[in-house]
């Protein structure tokens, strides 16, 4: 939940930076790194949960979403670094909008347990 809020707050910030025609600053990239760290924590908790007995009925899909979720912000950060214009900020903004969707989908899949 904290991850979703953090991602949405950052998304608003990055979109604002895009609107103001600002390239992502060091701090923007640092914020994205912090968000990535939050997501890593979330994914680790989810993976520990996998070995806790109650597996989601669709484990393969769940694993796919976990990998996508953990890799997403770093990939966006990499692209944003290649793009030192306002569009770099937009890349980070879009990524921060996709993260809540991914996290919600993860929770949705996890709630349908096969056990």
């Amino acid at each position, binding site marked *: 939940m904290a991850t979703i809020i953090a991602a949405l707050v950052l998304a608003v910030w990055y979109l604002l930076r895009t609107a103001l025609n600002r390239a992502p*600053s060091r701090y923007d990239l640092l914020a994205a790194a912090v968000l990535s760290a939050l997501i890593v924590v979330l994914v680790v908790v989810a993976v520990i949960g996998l070995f806790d007995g109650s597996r989601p009925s669709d484990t393969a*899909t769940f694993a796919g979403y976990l990998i996508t979720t953990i890799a997403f912000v770093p990939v966006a950060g990499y692209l944003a670094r290649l*793009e030192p*214009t306002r569009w770099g900020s*937009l*890349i980070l903004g879009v990524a921060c909008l*996709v993260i809540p969707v991914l996290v919600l989908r993860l929770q949705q899949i996890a709630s349908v347990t096969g056990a």
Partner: protein
Amino acid sequence: MPESSTRPRDAALGTGLGRVLLLVYGVFALSASARALVQITTHFGEAPLAYLLSAFAGLVYLSATVGLAIGGTRGRLIALVSCSIELIGVLVVGFLTLADAGDFPDDTVWSHFGSGYGYVPLVLPFIGLWWIWRHRPRPGDAV
């Protein structure tokens, strides 16, 4: 702050807004293909047409992503064809699903004009085509 800078109009297809498109197309390539893969491997018999369409949509997004990424004359052509197919696909499937849900019992990316994906699949080809059009080669361009 002198952080921002603009690029020349003849900059490569995969820079600027193109790089944002690259990310979004990449996301759709991944989600549509993964969805099709799961659907086809687990319950293909239920709605083969819808699942094959999912797979096809995934391939179209994938080729659009590749086209944007490699750029140049060839990449531009690949992206142009992919975005056109994507636009036709989302419109045709959108209308078909509006008219009669019978042919598509299970949803695809393009069902109901992509409403399940926040209508992004409907908007994306327009932005894509506009971007490619803006980057059309002009006489006098060094290719």
